[in-house]
């Protein structure tokens, strides 16, 4: 996903000398194309995220479109107050990009697990939040970010959904239909979508037909889409490599409440109010925390059969 992001950003920078890319001393070799093509528009701010975000804000207030790049929780939680007071409150044109959603850097340990970022970032007013699942969506999200003025957050995953389903096109804020079914609606965000598609196939073999949606935008968001889908399925499921508090599950419940809808059954798959202190690869940790394709399939089936 990160290579795709850099490629798209380079395309934009070709025609826009106002694009600045600031890294917090991360992105070894990944950012080379941008750095060598646009050396004046590239800044390594060093291992100092608070100042990195302040500088980004200052440059944005001077008219630049500033992308800030780092990994895991460093460009979000580490400098959260700078994002809230400075970037967001001043509507500064700063685009925060973090690579390492969820367990992307699983074996590096808890410091590198980004499992609360969406909940926190989307609680800040005016910050647009994107969480793409595939390269197609990354491209669309970056386009959308480049074409809006104001703060944005882009959550990039190390994993990407392998199924490049493009039947339904990308509309900011609208959950994208990946696969159509009748009984169960599975909403996923980020690279974990590939696990969800596999789980849907598994459910099919067990006689349960599942729709699959990719939730690539947390703000803007269309509550009506969630409500419409919930009304036409018996069971609604949220799947996220993120805390179930305030992330996709929280977003969906807020949308249902706004639409006056209370789904009969709502299953939340994600990190359930605990720290992910186990060591392991992204794939391994998804298994441990019940969000790999096999776990999703069996958890959904269990709830569905008891309805």
């Amino acid at each position, binding site marked *: 996903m990160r290579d795709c992001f850099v490629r798209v950003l380079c395309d934009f920078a070709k025609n826009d000398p106002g694009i600045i890319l600031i890294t917090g001393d991360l992105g070894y070799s990944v950012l080379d194309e941008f750095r060598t093509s646009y050396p004046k528009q590239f800044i390594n701010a060093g291992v*100092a995220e608070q100042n990195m*975000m*302040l500088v980004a804000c200052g*440059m944005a207030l001077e008219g630049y479109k500033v992308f800030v790049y780092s990994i895991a929780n460093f460009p979000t939680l580490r400098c959260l107050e700078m994002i809230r*007071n400075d970037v967001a409150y001043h509507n500064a044109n700063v685009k925060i990009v973090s690579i390492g959603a969820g367990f992307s850097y699983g074996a590096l340990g808890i410091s590198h697990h980004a499992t609360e970022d969406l909940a926190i970032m989307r609680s800040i007013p005016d910050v647009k939040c994107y969480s793409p699942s595939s390269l197609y969506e990354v491209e669309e999200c970056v386009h959308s970010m480049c074409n809006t003025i104001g703060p944005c957050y882009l959550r990039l995953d190390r994993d990407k959904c392998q199924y490049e389903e493009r039947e339904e096109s990308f509309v900011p804020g609208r959950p994208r239909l990946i696969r159509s079914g009748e009984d169960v609606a599975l909403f996923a965000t980020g690279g974990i979508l590939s696990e969800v598609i596999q789980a849907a196939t598994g459910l099919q073999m067990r006689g349960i037909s599942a729709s699959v949606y990719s939730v690539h935008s947390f703000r803007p968001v269309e509550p009506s889409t969630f409500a419409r889908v919930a009304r036409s399925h018996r069971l609604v499921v949220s799947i996220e490599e993120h805390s179930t508090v305030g992330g996709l599950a929280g977003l969906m419940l807020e949308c249902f409440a706004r639409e006056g809808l209370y789904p009969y059954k709502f299953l939340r798959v994600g990190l359930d109010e605990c720290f992910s202190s186990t060591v392991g690869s992204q794939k391994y940790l998804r298994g441990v925390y019940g969000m790999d394709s096999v776990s999703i399939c069996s958890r959904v089936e269990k709830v569905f059969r008891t309805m």
Partner: protein
Amino acid sequence: MSAGIDGFERPGDSVQVMDLDSVNLARRVRRHCVRMTSKGGSSHVASCLSAVDIITVLYGKIMRISAENPRASNRDRFILSKGHAGAAVYATLAELGFFDTALLEDHYQDGSLFSGHVSHKGIPGVEVSTGSLGHGLGIAAGMAKAIKLKGGSERVFVVVSDGECDEGSVWESALFAAHHQLDNLVCVIDCNAIQGLAPVSEVLNLEPLSDKWRSFGWVVQEVNGHDHPALVSAFETIPNKVGYPLVCIARTVKGKGVSFMEGKVEWHYRTAKGSDYDRAMDELEDPV
């Protein structure tokens, strides 16, 4: 001329150094500060009074600005990083004609735009809102970097407090500004020697402060922060040294101008009421 991101120069807006009697301006601003904080029942009057001379010298004698066009593209930028001295900035801007002085009566009132910590929303002339310490220098550095990239000649001034230098982010920004040779950036430290609960030397000693900034790669000027000619001469030549940001360590007295507030920790929070208020206003008598 003012430079754009696209590399094309445009005719700049009309800006100028106001060249006012900054001593008289400072006296008027001090009276506003005492009245505003008293009426609003707000804290930080002593923090305002220590910074008044710095702020009025910058606005009255140094910065190229326009009250008619506060967002003039070629204006010098000013950030009050010690946002709790907001009343001093509001009062200075009002005195300079950025908005009506009558609006200062709104300070700290319900439904007002004039929050205790300086706010930019709806207030002409305020660049950014601050209040949490350790933010202003980094934003100023970003602005200075952007201006250099555009090829502009505007300068960026930021006022921080000595207590604020406890914040690690100040030092991150200090590293950045020196590394990027931001000689269009001027940081003024209002060293009134007192912070929230006690003297700075007792809470978290900063000295030798000049040496610290010098070792971070800044040009350092140490001045009496109430001496207007000394302040003017500190800011007269910018860049002071090509390729180096300038820090002006302004030694000040907390509560300057009101004898019973001077150097007293409690006036970081107290509000002048009743006889205290009358005495303070007497001491800060109207300029002739």
